[in-house]
């Protein structure tokens, strides 16, 4: 549904995004991961026409997104509300949102307000940090926008509220499939919600793959150092740690069921690398570039 080709963006002499190529397919939930300053927010702002790019194409359903009213109606970017909204009452903010999004569902909005127990008569600035975030999340959910983007949706939310949001998202996705992009630092909490992850590292996309593929391609092996070394020879190594004669090595490679059995028969333990750890390995130092 969204095609990005050769996208570049810099602020002055500061290059933020370099030659981004990305295909976003319809009705999938994507996770956009990157370290601070990797350019996630800039990319999301470019996709939703909040910023002007230096060069490259962004097409929504085959058409240029800039000044494209159809693309604007179909997209909702949820990010912290601007300063100019702080004196507005929450219910007036919802009224403005209703006018902006073509697929807005007013009764779903009401339902979310009562589920999240939000007082809409208050002015935005009077709300707690968590409740301010919730105003944005309700707009994103109730917009039913074909492409809904949540930029760091969990800021200020406690664990109970975060899980309420994940549940609401999954429940609504069931009956109203759409494309969702979520940028987050809470990787392990959200990993299994994503169908695909996109990793942005040093201004470039260094990885885009299905979460299930990544799980089948990243393993910790631990056991006798000599045997582990022999097994990981010629495999891509992400991590290596020694504990006496035991060695723990993280590899990025497929292991067939037969290979796993063979490795286990040599008294080597195998476990999957959690997505958050994999992300750390892939975005620290220069490892990301060899992917």
């Amino acid at each position, binding site marked *: 549904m969204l095609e990005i080709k050769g996208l570049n963006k810099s602020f002055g002499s500061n290059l933020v995004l370099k030659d981004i190529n990305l295909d976003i397919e319809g009705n999938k*939930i994507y996770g956009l991961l990157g370290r601070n300053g990797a350019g996630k927010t800039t990319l999301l702002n470019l996709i939703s026409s909040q910023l002007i790019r230096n060069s490259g194409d962004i097409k929504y359903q085959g058409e240029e997104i800039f000044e494209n009213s159809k693309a604007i109606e179909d997209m909702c970017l949820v990010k912290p509300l601007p300063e100019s909204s702080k004196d507005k009452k929450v219910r007036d903010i919802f009224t403005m949102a209703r006018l902006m999004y073509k697929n807005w569902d007013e009764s779903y909005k009401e339902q979310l307000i009562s589920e999240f127990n939000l007082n809409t008569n208050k002015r935005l600035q009077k709300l707690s940090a968590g409740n301010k975030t919730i105003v944005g999340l309700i707009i994103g959910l109730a917009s039913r926008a074909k492409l809904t983007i949540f930029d760091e949706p969990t800021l200020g939310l406690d664990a109970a509220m975060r899980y309420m949001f994940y549940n609401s998202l*999954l429940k609504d996705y*069931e009956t109203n499939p759409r494309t969702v992009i979520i940028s987050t630092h809470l990787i392990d909490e959200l990993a*299994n919600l994503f169908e695909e992850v996109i990793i942005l590292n040093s201004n470039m996309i260094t990885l885009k793959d299905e*979460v299930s593929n990544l799980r089948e391609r990243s393993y910790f092996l631990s056991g006798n150092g000599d045997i582990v070394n022999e097994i990981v020879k010629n495999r891509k190594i992400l991590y290596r740690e020694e504990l006496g004669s035991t060695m723990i090595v993280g590899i990025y490679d497929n292991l067939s069921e037969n290979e796993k*059995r063979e490795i286990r028969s040599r008294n080597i333990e195998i*476990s*999957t690398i959690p997505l958050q750890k994999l992300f750390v390995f892939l975005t620290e130092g220069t490892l990301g570039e060899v992917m």
Partner: protein
Amino acid sequence: MLDLNSDKSIYIQIAEIIENDIILGNLKEEEQSPSTNEFARVYQINPATARKGLNILVDEGILYKKRGIGMFVSRGARSEIVRKRQASFLKEKLPEILMEANRLEITFDELIQHIKKLGGGR
């Protein structure tokens, strides 16, 4: 329950959860299986992952689709799963157990004695 740290793929775990329910009789032949979306919501996983798990069982003939209604347990599913699990028990699990027994220097006779004591096998 799902084990997110297991080296087993989530969708394979979903397939096994359904198989276990069929083996235990919690889910009977010709009964409707929970849907992709129910699995997604309960385990908080992406519906595509859950779908992949259900589709494995459809491919193996353990579940079948009724258009517009959902997935149902095929006739003969239970014996099919039992057959499959027996094969994997003998080929994969048992060798692992025996390997651990060897590591712990348990003799063949001791092993047989314990199997008898525990009433293993039919």
